[in-house]
C-alpha cells in the first residue's frame, strides 16, 4: 500500500513536472478577429507554461483554409502546431486527409465531451476520431436599432414569429418611406438566411449522418418560403456582406440577423451608433416555435506534423476548455464561447455599454441549448452553391412552389455529391 502511494506520488510528480517543463514554440494559424482573440489568451497560458512561446499568425480566413489544404495535400508540409478551422469546412479535411490531424482523444479530449454542446462536435469527429476542439459558435440572434424601432412604433419584444417580423417591417416602411429596411438578405450571393431559418426548423442540406440529401424536407420548404415572403413584402433589401455593413453604417438597416459573432462587426464598424443597438431572439416560424439557430463557428486542430503536440494541446485546453480562456476571447473580440461552463461566467451577465447596457451575452448564450444539430459534411460548398442559385431563381419566380424549387435543389445536390435524396 505504502509502495503504491509512493509510486502514484512519483507518477503525479513526473506528470506535473512534465507539464511545467513543456517548452519550445507553438505556432498558431488564424484570421482577423479570431487571431486577436487567441492572442489574448496567451498571457494566461504563459502563466501555466512560461517556457512555451506562442506565435499567433494572422493569415486571413481564406489563406488559412487554402494553405491548410495545400499543406495536407503535400503530406503535412509547412503546417503550424495549431490550426484554425471553420466547422462548416472541417469535414473536407477529415474526409480527404484523415492523417493530417491528430486524434485529440489520444490527448485527453474524450474527457471534455460533455463540456461542449453536442452540435459543436458533430462536424469535428469522423470515424471515431476527434479531430478538433470546439472554439466559438454562432448562435443566431437579431441585432436591432432601438431608436429606429421606436420611431416606427415597433416593439421588439412583441416580434415572436416571422409574420410579426414582416408586420413590423411594413410599419418601418410606412414610417421611413421605404428608406429603412428591417434587414438585408444576400440573395444571389449567399444563402445564409435560408440556412439560419432551415436550421431553426431542424432541417439542413444533409442529414446528420451525412448520408442523404434532406434539403427538400418540410423545415427547409418553410424556410425558403419565409425568405421569399420577406423579400416580396419588401421589408428586407438585397445586399452582400459588404453591402450589409455599408447599409447599417449609413443607418438604412434597422436590424441584422447573423451568428452572434456579428456583434464585433457592428460594434467596430459603427462605433458612433453606440447605445443605439440592442438584441432579441430570432423570430420563430410559428408561435411557440424554436427561436435558435447556428451560423458559423470554428474549432482548433493540431496537425500531425506538429513537432510540439503536447504544448499545442495545452494551448487548446487553456484557450478553449477553460471558462477563463473563452471569456477572455469573448471580451476582446466578441467570440461566442461554446464551452458550456463559460456561459455561467459573471461577465456574461453584465450589461454591455455599446448595446444600451443590455445583457446581450445572456440572451445570446441562452439559445445555445436550443440549437438543432446540423452537419456541413465535406460537400457543404457544393450544396451551398446549388442553394444560392435555387433561392435566387425561386425568388425570381422560376419555380411555382418552394417544394418544387427544393426538389430541384435536392436533385442537383445529389448529382454533384453522389449522395441520394432522402425518401
Amino acid at each position: 500500500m505504502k509502495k503504491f502511494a509512493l509510486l502514484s506520488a512519483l507518477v503525479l510528480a513526473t506528470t506535473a513536472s512534465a507539464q511545467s517543463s513543456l517548452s519550445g514554440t507553438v505556432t498558431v494559424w488564424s484570421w482577423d478577429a479570431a487571431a486577436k482573440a487567441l492572442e489574448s489568451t496567451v498571457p494566461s497560458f504563459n502563466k501555466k507554461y512560461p517556457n512555451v512561446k506562442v506565435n499567433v499568425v494572422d493569415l486571413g480566413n481564406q489563406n488559412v483554409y487554402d494553405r491548410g489544404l495545400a499543406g495536407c495535400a503535400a503530406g503535412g508540409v509547412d503546417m503550424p502546431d495549431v490550426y484554425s478551422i471553420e466547422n462548416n469546412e472541417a469535414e473536407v479535411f477529415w474526409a480527404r486527409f484523415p492523417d493530417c490531424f491528430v486524434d485529440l482523444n489520444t490527448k485527453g479530449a474524450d474527457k471534455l465531451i460533455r463540456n461542449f454542446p453536442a452540435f459543436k462536435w458533430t462536424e469535428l469527429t469522423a470515424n471515431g476520431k476527434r479531430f478538433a476542439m470546439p472554439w466559438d459558435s454562432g448562435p443566431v440572434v437579431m441585432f436591432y436599432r432601438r431608436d429606429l424601432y421606436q420611431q416606427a412604433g415597433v416593439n421588439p419584444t412583441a416580434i415572436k414569429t416571422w409574420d410579426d417580423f414582416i408586420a413590423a417591417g411594413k410599419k418601418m416602411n410606412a414610417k421611413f418611406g421605404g428608406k429603412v429596411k428591417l434587414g438585408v438578405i444576400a440573395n444571389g450571393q449567399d444563402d445564409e438566411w435560408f440556412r439560419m431559418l432551415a436550421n431553426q426548423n431542424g432541417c439542413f442540406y444533409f442529414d446528420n449522418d451525412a448520408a442523404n440529401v434532406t434539403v427538400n424536407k418540410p423545415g427547409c420548404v418553410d424556410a425558403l418560403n419565409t425568405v421569399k415572403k420577406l423579400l416580396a413584402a419588401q421589408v428586407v433589401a438585397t445586399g452582400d456582406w459588404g453591402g450589409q455593413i455599408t447599409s447599417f453604417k449609413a443607418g438604412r438597416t434597422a436590424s441584422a440577423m447573423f451568428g452572434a459573432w456579428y456583434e464585433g462587426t457592428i460594434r467596430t464598424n459603427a462605433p458612433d451608433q453606440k447605445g443605439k443597438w440592442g438584441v432579441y431572439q430570432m423570430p420563430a416560424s410559428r408561435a411557440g416555435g424554436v427561436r435558435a439557430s447556428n451560423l458559423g463557428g470554428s474549432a482548433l486542430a493540431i496537425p500531425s506534423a506538429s513537432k510540439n503536440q503536447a504544448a499545442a494541446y495545452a494551448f487548446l485546453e487553456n484557450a478553449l476548455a477553460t471558462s477563463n480562456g473563452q471569456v477572455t476571447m469573448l471580451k476582446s473580440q466578441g467570440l461566442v464561447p461554446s464551452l458550456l461552463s463559460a456561459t455561467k461566467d459573471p461577465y456574461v451577465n453584465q450589461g454591455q455599454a455599446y448595446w444600451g447596457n443590455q445583457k446581450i451575452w445572456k440572451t445570446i448564450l441562452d439559445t445555445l441549448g436550443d440549437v438543432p444539430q446540423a452537419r456541413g459534411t465535406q460537400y457543404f460548398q457544393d450544396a451551398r452553391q446549388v442553394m444560392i442559385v435555387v433561392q435566387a431563381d425561386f425568388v425570381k419566380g422560376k419555380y411555382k412552389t418552394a417544394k418544387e424549387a427544393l426538389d430541384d435543389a435536392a436533385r442537383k445536390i445529389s448529382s454533384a455529391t453522389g449522395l441520394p435524396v432522402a425518401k
Partner: protein
Amino acid sequence: MTTAPRPAVTRPAKAGWWARLPKAPYLFILPYLLIFLAFWAWPIVSSFLMSFKDSRLGAAAPYGMANWSRLISDEFFRTALRNTLVILLVQVPLMLSLATALAVALNSRLLRAAGWFRFAFFAPLVVGTVAYSAVFRLLFNTDFGIVNRALTSLGLPAVDWLNQSGPAMTVLILAMTWRWTGYNAIILLAGLQGISEDVYEAASIDGATPWQQFWKITLPLLRPSLLFCLVLSVIGTLQLFTEPALITNSGPGNATMTLGTYLYQQGFRSFNFGYASAIAYTVAAIAAIFSVVQLRLFGRDE
C-alpha cells in the same frame, strides 16, 4: 577539271548514334528540360490522370469515369460555358472594334500629343486587377455607387447592377472592355505602323475616300495583327477568372459564373481536383478548337 579525291572519312566503324550525338547542346538545355518535365509536363499528365479519379474519396479512389459523366450532365458547367460564350460573342467583338477605331485615331497625323494618348489608353492595364475590380464594384453599387447617382440625377431609374443577372453581365463586359481595349489598340497600332504610307498615297491619287481606304487597305493589311488580338482575346476569355470572381463573385446566382470561376470553385473551394481537372481539360480543348478555327478562317495568306 578533275575532282580531287575526297578524303576518307575516318569514322570508327562500331560507333552508334549515341557516340555521334553532339552532347554539349543537350547538356546545356538539360536543366531546362528537367524543370519543364517536373513542373510542366508532369502536372499536365498528372491532372489528366486525376480527371479519372474521384478525388473526394481520398487517395485510394479507383480510376473511373465519374468526373467525366458528371461533366456531361452538370447544369452548372453548362451555365458557366454559356456565360463564357456570351462574353466571347459580345465583349470580344465590341472590344476589338473599339480597339481598331482607337488605333486608327492614335495613328492619325492630325492627333496632337499622341504619346500621351497612347499612354492614357494603355494605363488601365497597369492598374492592378484587384484594385480595378474593387473600384468597379464601388462604381456600380446600387445604393452608393456613382453610376446610379448619375442615372438618378438625369431622371433615369437606378439599376440594381450587381444583384440582377443582365446588369451584372453588363458591368462585367464594361469592366473588361475598359481594361483591355487599350492593350489591343497598342498591338493594332504597331500593325498600322507597319503599313507603308505609299499605299495610302497611291490610293489618294486614285481618288479613294478615307472611308474606302480604311475598308480596302487598312483592315486587310491589319489582318495579321487583328488575328493575333482575336486569338489572344478568345483564349483570355476562356480563362476569364479575375473579373467575375472579384466584381460579381460569379453572381447573382450563377449569372456571371465563367469556366474559370467554376474551375476554381470546384478545385479550391470544394477541393475536388479530379473534377476540376476534367473541367480544365475541357476548357483547353475548347480553346484549341477555337484557335484552329480562327486560324483557318482568318489566317489564310494570299
